[in-house]
């Protein structure tokens, strides 16, 4: 296409592309994208996020039926994996790559270049000084070389030069490039963790064993590219769990010093080892981390049918409802006819306050169960998916005696006879349970190395002050004074330094009497 065919202002496709590229990689775009990223991160801190607290999301959705579809469409419950959030940071990455790649080449060339020649008139530079001395031109320049040579790169002198040119602070740009490159490294590490990592949670009662396979988890969140082959073949047993309860002071009733004594096998036939699992002290087994993140009580209850045969026995984890450890749980003996089920509360330290049953302490000082009993079709063998913490009472009825609901209140050692020959319930003892989080986070090392590199680069970039220095010596014969005129100029390449100090230090060093 010749130029005449084009209307003014019209761009060819190539020019348009180049223009676009320049826009995307400009400082201004980078700045805009950074601010946009900050802005886009806000909704996720206000609206509950599925990845952070799924329970709260469900609750929020229940409370806002009208807004929910809109929010769902906008991915507001998973902001940080939404297309629009990703678009912003991917654009930023693109801008970043487009920005640093050319700068790498420029830097490579700058590294091998000589400090530039002195400007013709140093006294016109913004930061400059001059003085007269009795030294000759050559002596002045020699001095300048030795003063500057220690911490600057000097321009190779050529015959007839009446100046010394020096430069320092090359590492600043290197630091800046390192910083921006490591942003990419961190993102890569983060992405690897998101794609191949997994987190699972499981409640384990004291004395029982966990083997690391999918069926044993209560909940499991795998990354997009996770495969079960990644699961390591370890198992561990919770031998004992200790808690210390605070009995005085403002935090009375709170627990601390949680410690789960584990014995574990790192693989099928590895020797047994021991570990005391505590908060802030995860156990790492072959790239998989095990964390202690919660605890609670599992009352051990035995259920017998009308004939006295045991239909269910064992610890049943109850879930704490609040900090007092008042806990809710469900007991489902699997094979009774008719089916029965129990649902109710566990009080670690039961007491009556103002006529209401309460637990006055979190420790199990007076453990008490108070449950309601149901019979009928509880859906145990219906194939409907069953949560162990929910009793499906749709087709069941409450067990009653004399027209009043039966309340199964038990303390340790008590047995309760259900009416109509339905059997009995015995409260044997209480076992503690712990909740552990088990996770693989591949790429976390990469991300850590990335941020550390970023920090190093950042410090170099922020604290090194690149500058150029020129010293020129003009023989006294020029103006007849007989003294050499020395001119000195400093150029701050970062724009942030206190150059006056630098100037006066240099001046002092140059003027210092060498003899």
């Amino acid at each position, binding site marked *: 296409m010749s130029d005449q065919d084009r209307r003014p202002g019209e761009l060819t496709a190539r020019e348009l592309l180049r223009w676009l590229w320049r826009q995307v990689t400009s400082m201004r775009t980078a700045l805009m994208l*950074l601010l946009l990223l900050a802005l886009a*991160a806000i909704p*996720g801190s206000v609206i509950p996020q599925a990845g952070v607290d799924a329970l709260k999301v469900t609750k929020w959705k229940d409370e806002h039926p009208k807004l929910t579809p809109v929010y769902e469409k906008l991915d507001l419950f998973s902001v940080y994996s939404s297309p629009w959030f990703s678009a912003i940071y991917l654009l930023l990455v693109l801008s970043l790559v487009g920005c640093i790649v050319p700068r790498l080449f420029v830097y490579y060339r700058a590294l091998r270049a000589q400090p530039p020649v002195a400007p013709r008139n140093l006294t016109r530079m913004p930061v400059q000084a001059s003085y007269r001395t009795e030294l000759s031109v050559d002596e002045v320049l020699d001095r300048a070389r030795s003063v500057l040579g220690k911490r600057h790169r000097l321009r190779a002198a050529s015959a007839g030069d009446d100046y010394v040119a020096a430069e320092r602070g090359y590492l600043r740009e290197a630091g800046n490039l390192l910083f921006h490159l490591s942003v990419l490294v961190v993102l890569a590490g983060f992405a690897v963790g998101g794609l191949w990592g997994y987190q699972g949670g499981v409640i384990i009662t004291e004395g029982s064993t966990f083997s690391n396979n999918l069926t044993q988890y209560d909940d499991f969140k795998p990354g997009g590219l996770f495969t079960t082959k990644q699961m390591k073949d370890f198992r561990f047993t919770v031998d004992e769990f200790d808690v210390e309860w605070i009995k005085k002071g403002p935090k009375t009733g709170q627990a601390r010093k949680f410690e789960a004594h584990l014995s574990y096998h790192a693989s099928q036939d590895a020797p047994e080892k021991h570990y005391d699992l505590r908060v802030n*002290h*995860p156990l790492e087994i072959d790239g998989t981390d095990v964390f202690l*993140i919660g605890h609670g009580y599992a009352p051990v209850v035995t259920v017998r049918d009308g004939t006295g045969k045991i239909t269910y026995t064992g610890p049943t984890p109850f879930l704490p409802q609040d900090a007092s450890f008042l806990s809710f749980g469900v007991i489902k003996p699997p094979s009774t006819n008719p089916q029965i089920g129990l649902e109710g509360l566990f009080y670690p330290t039961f007491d009556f306050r103002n006529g209401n049953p309460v637990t006055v302490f979190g420790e199990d000082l007076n453990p008490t169960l108070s449950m309601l009993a149901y019979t009928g079709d509880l859906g145990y063998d219906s194939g409907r998916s069953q949560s162990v913490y929910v009793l499906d009472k749709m087709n069941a009825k409450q067990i009653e005696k004399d027209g009043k609901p039966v309340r199964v209140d038990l303390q340790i050692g008590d047995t309760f006879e259900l009416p109509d020959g339905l059997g009995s319930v015995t409260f044997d003892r209480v076992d503690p349970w712990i909740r552990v989080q088990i996770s693989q986070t591949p790429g976390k090392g990469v991300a850590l190395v990335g*941020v550390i590199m970023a920090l190093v680069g950042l410090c170099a970039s922020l604290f090194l002050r690149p500058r150029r220095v020129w010293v020129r010596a003009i023989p006294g014969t020029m103006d007849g004074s007989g003294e050499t005129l020395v001119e000195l100029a400093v150029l701050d390449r970062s724009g942030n330094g206190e150059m006056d100090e630098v100037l006066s230090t240099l001046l002092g060093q140059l003027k210092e009497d060498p003899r």
Partner: protein
Amino acid sequence: MTDANWEALSNQTVAAAGVLYFLALLVHLAEWAALRQPAVAGDLVTAGGGDTVAEGGYVGTATPAAPAGAGEDSPRVAFLGRLGLMLTCLAAAFHFVALVGRGMAADPNRVPWGNMYEFTLTGSFIVAALYLALYRRFRLGWMGPLVVGFVITVLMVAVIWLHDAVAPLSEALNSPWLVIHVVSAATATGAFTLGGIASIMYLVRMRAERRAAAAGRPLGRWLARVPQLDALDRLAYRVHAFAFPVWTFAVLITGPIWAHEAWSRYWNWDPKEVWAFITWVVYAGYLHARATAGWKGRRAAMLALVGVATLWFNFIGINYFSTSSQHSYAGLERPAFLDQR
């Protein structure tokens, strides 16, 4: 001394520090007032305010080293300034004792960073301490009333709304990372706050200069004592440049390491983390803005203020806005400590 004695001592020294800061503020305000009165030939502001004639024809630089107007202070002003500084030093000393007292009052003894009250006490102390530490180097005399005013405000918020009895650290806080993480985060917070004050003054002085130039009258006496625009800009930059890597260390290195130890995920997009990230990105924006034509100066200073706002919102606001602060360690999801960081 018993734990209760230590706690009482801490409460008393906070009160004493508050009174002393208040006195320091009064003295600085008096200093301010004394400045206004004698309108001695104030330096007329020339638009751009840059070029200086080379003195004696030899050494000359574009940026005068001393802020304009310095050295012309009347003895009364100078005395009040010194008195204010001394009171601030004394107040900061009491403030420090209050912090130590909080730590000694706990059983077992610990660092005084167990709850919001203690974090806020620490944060405001670091602002004061950094101001005093940098006072000489950066000639921060003009900043006195602003810093002291800020510290006393935050201290009042802490005492009135956040006060909490001394208690042992919750389990998740009981980690060496607490010390490293909090020291770095609080240091960065203090520095960002000072940087923010410099940026505010940049904007204030810029406006005042424009008005003064338009009206052809000299700048107010107090403002004339505030460093010139380019010096303010450089001061703000240097303080931010110190704070930014420290903040990076706090929220992007020690925070994730600790989060990983305590509850298995090094980054979980929790509100606290989100806002720490937002603050980080805004300050990255500030550093970029200073290198971008059209964003230098005024807009960069405004970005710095946005940064300070996100910082303090995270520090105090998130704990009240965010409803997720009730997870106890026993809760189903995860421990509560995150909301206290």
